[in-house]
């Protein structure tokens, strides 16, 4: 393996860069963006070995680092990566680099802190993807919130304080429940093996009584459902997106939303398989409602960013449905949707940012007939819209098709209702596209808009490339993610039998009288 502690470098380099950028003296205010871009570029290049050096078929985790962190309670600084987290980490580094590059003109005041926040956010996200120790996971999970909160709160739009606070409290409320679950699991773990440890593999090894599992699963599921966001707990997303600066909402959409589904795949599903089996239909139907509801509500949004935010709710609904299908196609589809949603929605937000920078308005009604004035922009907007509605040949289709296929194999009705999402997404995206790009130029201000500058085209070039690469040749991505997904699936089934066999003598503390058999209907 690499001589240096590769993952630690990957996680803490952006943090160090963030600090350096933040403490740059005043006269470097203008060049702060150049330094930040350089740092993000180095980080991206440094993360490429995750793609090339990763041997997908090797069992367990790679690039592992395991040091004692808090010996007294057995919490270890344990980092590792497998097919799933490597791809998501690559998505993070790429999208952060693009977000930093795109924010050159959009941020005027306090730009040093702005870039520092972006880099710190990247460190938090990478940490969350890499860590395999539950306590460390919780630390990074919460650390990630702070830079995002500041990004929305300081550089946001009019109602930024409301949006930032809502975002923070919403996620915090969920993750506090998760913390309680982690601690009580730790307690059970210590009694079960006698050795205190927060290590994920030890939790994987410990069977838990099914009735107990339900409460833990609901705690974890609730925390991750908020992040996904799943249907009833999604209202923080439109507000956060509308008020966040472009770069902030690009990363928020591209990576932060994947935390929820990643959490499900890595933690909630393998650790509590029996409870999962009980809750699968409920969560599946909730994600289907999310798909249809997100699309329906997106239809009538007057604000571009809100429309794209609700479309994210719809796309992430596909992700969760894929996971609930519990088969290879569903998992692969869900993972592909995560990656392709990250790319296409990130691009969509960048596009909205471009016209927001020129017209300082996000209302669809203020635009119209942009094709004549900004042909290159409109062409890119067309390609990204098509990728977002999942046209075959673009990245959106591969994910959506596999998710629907997986869902179809599990239950016909799931796929039938979810597939209407395909129609709805076409409706609202094309209607929006038509009102923004086609038609005669109604507002005089639009006549003078300049087309994309070289820098902006540079920002979109990698995204377009990815859209078509993942659309036509998704196999390299699928090869990398499948072994890890199969292992997760197999682990889930294996643990389900072991825990089921453990019905009476459930180790660990008896929580308040265990509930009766049926699964909780809460998400």
């Amino acid at each position, binding site marked *: 393996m690499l001589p240096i502690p590769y993952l630690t470098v990957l996680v803490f380099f952006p943090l160090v860069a963030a600090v350096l950028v933040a403490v740059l003296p005043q006269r470097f205010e203008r060049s702060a963006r150049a330094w930040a871009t350089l740092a993000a570029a180095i980080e991206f290049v440094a993360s490429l070995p995750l793609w090339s050096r990763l041997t997908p078929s090797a069992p367990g985790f790679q690039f592992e680092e395991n040091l004692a962190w808090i010996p007294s309670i057995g919490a270890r600084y344990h980092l590792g990566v497998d097919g799933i987290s490597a791809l998501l980490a690559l998505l993070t580094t790429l999208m952060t680099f693009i977000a930093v590059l795109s924010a050159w003109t959009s941020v005027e005041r306090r730009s040093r802190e702005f870039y520092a926040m972006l880099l710190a956010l990247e460190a938090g996200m990478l940490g969350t993807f890499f860590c395999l120790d539950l306590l460390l996971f919780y630390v990074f999970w919460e650390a990630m919130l702070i830079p995002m909160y500041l990004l929305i709160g300081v550089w946001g739009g009019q109602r930024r304080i409301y949006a930032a606070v809502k975002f923070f409290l919403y996620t915090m409320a969920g993750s506090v429940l998760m913390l309680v679950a982690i601690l009580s699991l730790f307690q059970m773990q210590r009694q079960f093996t006698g050795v205190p440890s927060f290590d994920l593999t030890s939790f994987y090894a410990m069977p838990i009584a099914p009735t107990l599992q339900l409460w833990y699963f609901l705690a974890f599921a609730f925390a991750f459902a908020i992040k996904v966001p799943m249907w009833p707990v999604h209202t923080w997303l439109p507000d956060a997106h509308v008020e966040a600066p472009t770069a902030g909402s690009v990363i928020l959409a591209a990576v932060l939303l994947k935390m929820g589904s990643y959490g499900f795949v890595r933690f909630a599903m393998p650790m509590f398989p029996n409870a999962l089996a009980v809750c699968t239909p409920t969560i599946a139907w909730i994600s289907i409602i999310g798909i249809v509801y997100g699309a329906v509500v997106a239809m009538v949004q007057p604000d571009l960013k809100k429309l794209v935010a609700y479309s994210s709710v719809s796309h992430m609904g596909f992700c969760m449905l894929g996971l609930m299908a519990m088969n290879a196609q569903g998992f692969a589809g869900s993972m592909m949707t995560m990656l392709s949603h990250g790319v296409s929605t990130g691009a969509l937000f960048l596009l909205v940012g471009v016209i927001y920078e020129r017209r300082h308005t996000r209302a669809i009604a203020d635009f119209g007939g942009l094709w004549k004035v900004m042909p290159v922009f409109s062409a890119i907007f067309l390609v990204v819209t098509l990728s977002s509605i999942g046209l075959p040949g673009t990245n959106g289709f591969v994910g959506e098709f596999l998710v629907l296929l997986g869902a179809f194999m599990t239950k016909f009705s799931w796929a039938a209702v979810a597939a209407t999402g395909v129609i709805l997404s076409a*409706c609202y995206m094309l209607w929006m596209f038509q009102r923004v*790009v086609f038609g005669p130029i109604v507002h005089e201000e639009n006549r003078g808009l300049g087309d994309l500058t070289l820098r902006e085209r540079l920002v979109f070039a990698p995204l377009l490339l990815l859209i078509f690469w993942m659309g036509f040749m998704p*196999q390299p991505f699928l090869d990398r993610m499948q072994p890890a997904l199969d292992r997760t699936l197999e682990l889930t089934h294996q643990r389900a039998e072991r825990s089921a066999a453990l019905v009476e003598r459930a180790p660990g503390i008896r929580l308040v009288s265990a509930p009766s058999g049926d699964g909780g209907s809460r998400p």
Partner: protein
Amino acid sequence: MNASLLAWIPGLPLAAVLVNLLLGDRLGKKGTAWLACGAVVAAFALALRAVLQLAALPEHERHLSEVAWTWMRVGTFSVDVAFLLDPLSAVMVLVVTGVGSLIHIYATGYMSHDPSFRRFFLYLNLFMFAMLTLVLADNYLLLFVGWEGVGLCSYLLIGFWYERPSAAEAGKKAFIVNRIGDFGFMLGAFMLVTATGSLQFDRVFSAAPHVFTAAGVTLATLLMFLGATGKSAQIPLFTWLPDAMEGPTPVSALIHAATMVTAGVYMLARSHVLFELAPATMQVVAVIGAATALMAATIGLAQNDIKRVLAYSTVSQLGYMFMACGVGAFGAGIFHVMTHAFFKALLFLGAGSVIHAMSDEQYMRRMGGLSSRLPFTHGTMAVATLAIAGVPFLAGFFSKDEILHAAWASGHKGIWLAGIVGACLTAFYMTRLYVLTFRGPSRLSHEAEHHLHESPPSMIVPLVVLAVLSVVGGYVGMPFQQGGNAFETWLHPVLSAGGHAAHHEVSRGVEWLLILLSVGVALLGIVLSLRSYLWNPATATALQTRFAGLHRLLVNKYWVDEVYDAVLVRPFVGISEWMWRFWDAKVVDGLVNGVGTTLEGGSAILKLFQNGYVGTYALFITLGVIALFLHFLR
């Protein structure tokens, strides 16, 4: 000569698209025209060579397949980007590239003075790539890629003149209606995968008979038929085609007459094994085909926009093709696809040349007497009109007769009757179109009269070629040939694969009778139309007044659009508005903010206890002490 060139047939137009994109304006109009037409003609040449190579093979192994790369492989399910050339796709590829190149040449003339000339050919080539992928696909998923690709290109080309809001609206409508169809097709494909484990044509068809239950295969085929209705504009999802006339005329000719709309028929013919396993679906297909044919023909009677009439005629002819597939005569269906491609493309291009001459005038009531001024257009259009009407010894007659013959032979008497009535109506409205445009008094406005001119040669040549094809094209499928119908024998290896093909023989005498009947009906339609529009126009107006109600019904196209709008679109937007305004903002968000406000309210109440009076604090302390005492007393 290995078969590796198959991939290049769709590859060439794609390469032209990329070159067009990259070089952009540096090419200039001339360069773009040559690049675009050259790519399609080269594709035609490649296709021809491949088909000849195919023909050389012995009959039972007539298929060339070639795998480009593995597209998706997840668990047991895997699908590749692979191309297949067999007799069925050979016919389609020849029609698509042949008619396509003619239309490309025509378009260079037609669009010569359009500012975004380059963008037009960009989309046109992209369309050719998508259509060729669809036709040459080796599995349902790649077919679906082409399927949605052509949907996208039709969206772009209908909305080509994006500054006209109606064009953008029509484009969006076309795409969404197609998407509804694709929804059905996708679900059908899923059923195939779950049952047979793959989407490869040969693997699905070989596994289908043993794996599928009756209900399963019926549902799967119905869903795929829903996709076909979306793409080929049949009864439930046909409303987008008439609006698609917003696009430039070459687009209407290529996409909405010759190639894209026939994709549904091709898909049905390709999966005939599945459809033959589900007689119920076949019944539905036949009935819908007949109903569409009749309904569209009646609407065509009352339209005054030349392109709308042709659009409804296309919907009607597509109805015929589906009727043929419904009664099991997939060969007849494909044959009609070919002949229809020839004369319908010719009609549209002719109409385009008329519109071009009349400086974008599409309203027939302001035309008339153009035969002398536009000789070539008039000549070729006349041939096409006779062909579509079903006049003997022309292409339309042979293919339509084949369908009627099959309908009668397979015992669908009702379907046959609808076909005959439809044939008569077709003859009537096509002659009406011909008369109103070319014959009769010239109702041209003065300035239209002023710069009326015949189209340049680049437009006339394709017209002539198509006219020739419309005449010659029919003989391939002429009945009473020695070894049976040449066209049928060519398709035989593909269409008989399932072994369930229904073979009904009818005595030669009855066959002759049928032919005479259909010819008679066609001539009746022509004569009636000539009488009421040319010889004494008064009868037309008389007819209109006497059946005023019926006439208004037809002019308004049975109010189908309005019904769809009222029943589907408006309530849907209403619901989504309600869902957002009420549900999302008030309920869900309300709950979240509610938590905040309740906490605030609570603290406001608690604040009152802190009223600053030392006395009250002392009182609380005492009460606390008393409470402690009580606790100990218990």
